[in-house]
C-alpha cells in the first residue's frame, strides 16, 4: 500500500474509534448541546419581547427575533461542541494508550486527523439538532436557494474545522482533561460578545470593534445573509479568512505539541 492510502486507512481507523467513543458515551456530546438550547429558549421565550423590540422588531411578535438569533446559536453550538474534542484529545494524550499508538508503525497524524474529522462530524450533527429545535420554535429561512443552503452548510463545516483544530491544540496543550475543558471555555463564551444576540452596532462604541472583528461575528453575519437574505458585505471574506487562519494555526500548533517527546 502506498503511504497515502496507509495514512487514509489509519486516519479512518482512528475516526471510527473517535465516533465509537461518542456513540458509547453520548452524554458528553449531549451535555454540550444544553448551553445553546437553553440560550435559545431563554432568549426567545423569557427575554424575547424586549429583545425583539430592541432589534426593531414589530411589537410582541417574536418570530423576527427567532430568525435573528438562530444563526448565531448554530455557530455557538459549534463553539460548544468542540469543547468535547479538547477534552477527548487531552484524555488520549495523558493516557497510556497514546504511548502504544506512538510505538506502532502507523501514520503519525492519524490520531489527530481522527479527532478532527470526528469533531467536525459531531459539530454538524449538533448543529442539525439545535437547528431542528429552532425550526420547532418557528425559525424559517427566507427564500434561501439550494446553493445558499449548501454554502451555509459549507460555512458551518469550515467554521467547525477551524474551531476543532484550535480545540485539539488546547487539548494537547493541557495537563489534564479538566484543564482542557476550562481552556476551551472561551469558545462557548465568545458568541455572547458577538452579534449573535444583539447587533454589534447597538453595543457601546468602545466595544464595537471587539464584537465586530472576532471570528464569530463575521461568520454569524454570513450565515444570516445566506439563510435570511440580509446584507453579507465583506463579512463573507472575513469569515473565510478567520476559518482558514484558525485552521492553519490550530493544525500547526497541534502538530508541534503532538510531535514533542512525551514526558
Amino acid at each position, binding site marked *: 500500500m502506498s503511504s497515502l492510502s496507509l495514512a487514509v486507512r489509519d486516519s479512518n*481507523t482512528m475516526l471510527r474509534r473517535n465516533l*465509537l467513543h461518542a456513540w*458509547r458515551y453520548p452524554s458528553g456530546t449531549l451535555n454540550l448541546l444544553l448551553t445553546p438550547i437553553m440560550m435559545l429558549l431563554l432568549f426567545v421565550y423569557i427575554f424575547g419581547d424586549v429583545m425583539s423590540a430592541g432589534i426593531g422588531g414589530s411589537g410582541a411578535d417574536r418570530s423576527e427575533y427567532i430568525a435573528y438569533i438562530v444563526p448565531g446559536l448554530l455557530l455557538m453550538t459549534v463553539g460548544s461542541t468542540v469543547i468535547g474534542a479538547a477534552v477527548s484529545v487531552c484524555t488520549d494524550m495523558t*493516557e497510556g494508550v497514546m*504511548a502504544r499508538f506512538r510505538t*506502532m*508503525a502507523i501514520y503519525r497524524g492519524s490520531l489527530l486527523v481522527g479527532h478532527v474529522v470526528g469533531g467536525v462530524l459531531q459539530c454538524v450533527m449538533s448543529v442539525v439538532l439545535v437547528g431542528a429545535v429552532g425550526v420547532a420554535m418557528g425559525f424559517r429561512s427566507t427564500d434561501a436557494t439550494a446553493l445558499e443552503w449548501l454554502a451555509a452548510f459549507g460555512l458551518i463545516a469550515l467554521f467547525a474545522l477551524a474551531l476543532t483544530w484550535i480545540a485539539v491544540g488546547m487539548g494537547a496543550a493541557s495537563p489534564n482533561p479538566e484543564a482542557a475543558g476550562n481552556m476551551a471555555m472561551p469558545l462557548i463564551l465568545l458568541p455572547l460578545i458577538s452579534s449573535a444576540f444583539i447587533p454589534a452596532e447597538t453595543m457601546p462604541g468602545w466595544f464595537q470593534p471587539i464584537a465586530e472583528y472576532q471570528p464569530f461575528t463575521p461568520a454569524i453575519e454570513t450565515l444570516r445573509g445566506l439563510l435570511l437574505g440580509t446584507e453579507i458585505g465583506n463579512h463573507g471574506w472575513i469569515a473565510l479568512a478567520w476559518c482558514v487562519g484558525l485552521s492553519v494555526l490550530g493544525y500547526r500548533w497541534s502538530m508541534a505539541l503532538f510531535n514533542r517527546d*512525551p514526558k
Partner: protein
Amino acid sequence: MPSSVMRTSRQGDHRPSPTAVSAVSAVGLRKSYGEKLVLDGIDLHIPAGSVFALLGPNGAGKTTAVKILSTLITADGGQAQVAGHDVATAPDGVRAAIGVTGQFSAVDGLITGEENMLLMADLHHLSKSEGRRVAAELLERFDLTHAAKKPAATYSGGMKRRLDIAMTLVGDPRIIFLDEPTTGLDPRSRHNMWGIIRGLVSDGVTVFLTTQYLEEADELADRIAVLNDGRIAAEGTAEELKRLIPGGHIRLRFTDPASYQSAADTLREVTRDDEALTLQLPSDGSQRELRSILDRLDSAGIEADELTVHTPDLDDVFFALTGPADVPNQPKETVR
C-alpha cells in the same frame, strides 16, 4: 545461554541486514531531563530469541531506556539499533518489528476488550476476517473471552495487563518490550504473567523486560543487567551476577553468652555480633564445609541454638550494586 546461536524470524518480513545479529543493541545511550541525568551512557547487546531483564530500583532509568528503544522518545546521545533499524533514523522500521507494553495500562478504557483488539488489528492493517480471528484467538489465550464485550475500564488490574499484552501481540512482533509487567499485580496474577512471558519466549520472540523484582529477573531472564543511577552496574546471567558477590555465610545464634564465647574461640574467621550473640562464618554452603563446622562445635561440646545457611541470591547482588551501604540484614562483613 543463547549467546552465539541467533534465531531469525520465521516471518521473514522486515528483516534486518545480515550483519545485525542482535535483536537490540545500544552504545552509549544518554538522556537527561533538564538538569537530571537519567541515562549516563548505557551499552546493551541482546541476542535474538532471548529474554533480557533490566533490573533496577525506582528511578534508575529503566523506563527511559525502554522509551528510547521503543522510539517513544529520542536519546540525547549514543546509538541504538532494534531489529536492525536505527531508532533515531528509521523509527518506523523499529516500530514495525516491536510490541510495547508500557508500565501504565495502554488500553482504551472507553471501549470493550474486543474493540481494543480489533482496533489493533485495523492499525496493523489486517483484513477484517483475519482481524476477527486474531482477536478471538488472543482473547481466548489470555482468558478474556468472557469479558470481551465489557468496557476495558471495568477490568481488574490483572485483566487489564493481560489485555494490554494481548493487544501488543496482535501484530506478531518479534521483539517485545515489557516495562514492569507485574508491578501492582497480586501474587497469582504475577505468576500468570510469568507463564505468559515464558510462553512468548517459546514462540521465539525476544523479550526485553524491566523489573524491580529480583526474583522475577532470576525466574525469567537469560541475561540480566543491573541499572543504577543511569549506568549499568553489572551484566550477566543470574549465576554470573551471584558469583560477583561472595555473600554466602553460615550464621550461628546462641542464647547462652558462655557457649557464644567458647564457640567464637573455637571457630576462627568469625564475625561476631556480641549483642545478638550471633556468629557469622563465610561459607559456600557446601555439605563438607557445613560438616566441618559442626564437627568442630561437637568436639568442643558446644551447641548453637540456631543455625542458618545463607546462600547468595540476587538480593545480595542488587543491594551490593545499587544501594547505599546501610541496608538491613546485609552486614558489610559478608562482602569481603
